[in-house]
């Protein structure tokens, strides 16, 4: 197996993780990963060295952007919480909340936040993946964090109030 192919293969678990967090839907995420892998294999000859993983993140990020553009009129379906009390008490509480908080982010902000905190990319690598200057990455990150914090700070008291 070529080094390139090997690098692609070892990146699959991380790509699935990123795609899952980005889309919050396992099937859509794996579709994106599959499309990413197919494109990567097909354009191996276009890859001139560098970090295969960053390149794969770039393809996936772009494919997701295209997907969102074409889905832009579809209403965002959020799971209804039929059991918020249990949700709050359970160990999953934080997970469900962070998922909903991420859902409120603009795509570029969510992507920047996930690439940094989940995938461990440096600001410079994220700038390359997103094709923007580092300053833009930092402002996306700052807005993402402010929004997540506002969502998590704001929603819980509101839910408690109605109890």
């Amino acid at each position, binding site marked *: 197996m070529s080094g390139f*192919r090997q690098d*692609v*293969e070892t990146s*699959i*678990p*991380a790509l*699935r*993780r990123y795609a*899952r*967090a980005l889309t919050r839907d396992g099937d859509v995420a*794996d*579709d*994106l*990963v*599959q*499309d990413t*892998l*197919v494109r990567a*294999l*097909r354009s191996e000859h276009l890859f001139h060295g560098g970090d295969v993983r960053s390149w794969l993140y770039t393809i996936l990020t772009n*494919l997701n952007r*295209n*997907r969102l*553009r*074409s*889905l*832009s*009129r*579809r209403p965002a379906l959020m799971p209804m919480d039929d059991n918020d009390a249990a949700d709050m008490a359970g160990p999953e509480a*934080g*997970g469900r*909340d*962070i*998922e909903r*908080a*991420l859902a409120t982010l603009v795509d570029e902000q969510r992507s920047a*936040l*996930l690439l*940094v*905190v*989940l995938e461990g990319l*440096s*600001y410079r690598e994220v700038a390359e993946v997103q094709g923007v200057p580092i300053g833009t990455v*930092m402002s996306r*990150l*700052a807005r993402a*964090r402010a929004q*997540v*914090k506002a969502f*998590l700070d704001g929603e819980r008291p509101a839910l408690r109030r109605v109890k």
Partner: protein
Amino acid sequence: MVDRTTQVTDDELHAYVDGELRPDRRSAVESWLAAHPEDAARVAAWRAHSELIRVRYGGVARNPVPAHLDLDRLTRAERKWTWLAAAAVLAAFLVGGATGWFGRGVLEGVPSLAAQTETAEAIDAHKLYVSEVRHPIEVPADASHLLPWLSRRVGSTLRAPDLGTFGLKLMGGRLLPGHSGKPAAMFMYESTSGERYTLYCARSAAPETALHYSVAGPVAAVYWGDGDVGFVVSGPADRDRLLKIAQSAYEQLDRRITRGNS
């Protein structure tokens, strides 16, 4: 009076959390946080949220990779698709003039996600309306507003190709909610024996492609992308006939693009 050397920016706070801070600024940031509890609380929240994200999604990377993402398998699938596309083009070449097909350039392998989705939607619409007895179409072929109306809604000048050489007569068309709710147009054709074919057209993000043939049970479809419009011809799964019809539709519609709207 603020001491400029100890002034810390928000960017530096983020960089501190993400391990991107210049080492010589570390102690300045730490003293700043000690003196500014609100900032310290923000930093703590950012860290906690990062941890929530890692806990929530980290497991995905530890799960086994599903078989359909296996690279060897994807490579095989790619070859199969390429073969199918090549076979389709060859068939089209053999049955009709080759005009245009070579202009399509290099064949792609697996069609893009957008192309696959559009094909699936076209097949669904085909199945639904072809079996409709009373109202298979919305606007009849002889209505002068059929094409202007559908063109305006879809956002591209549309033409209904003449498929008379295949014994198919245009019945009319209808507007459909296409991929992601974008307007799509569907034209329906019928032979004297009641055989029905549809041509589905929608603005598409999919890249230009050569034709792709796919089968869904008794129905088959041929997809191609041209400019910013994706076309799908659907009909009974008789491969040779469908390819001939798609080839003819493609040539007629392509003529529209290359020679203008004359």
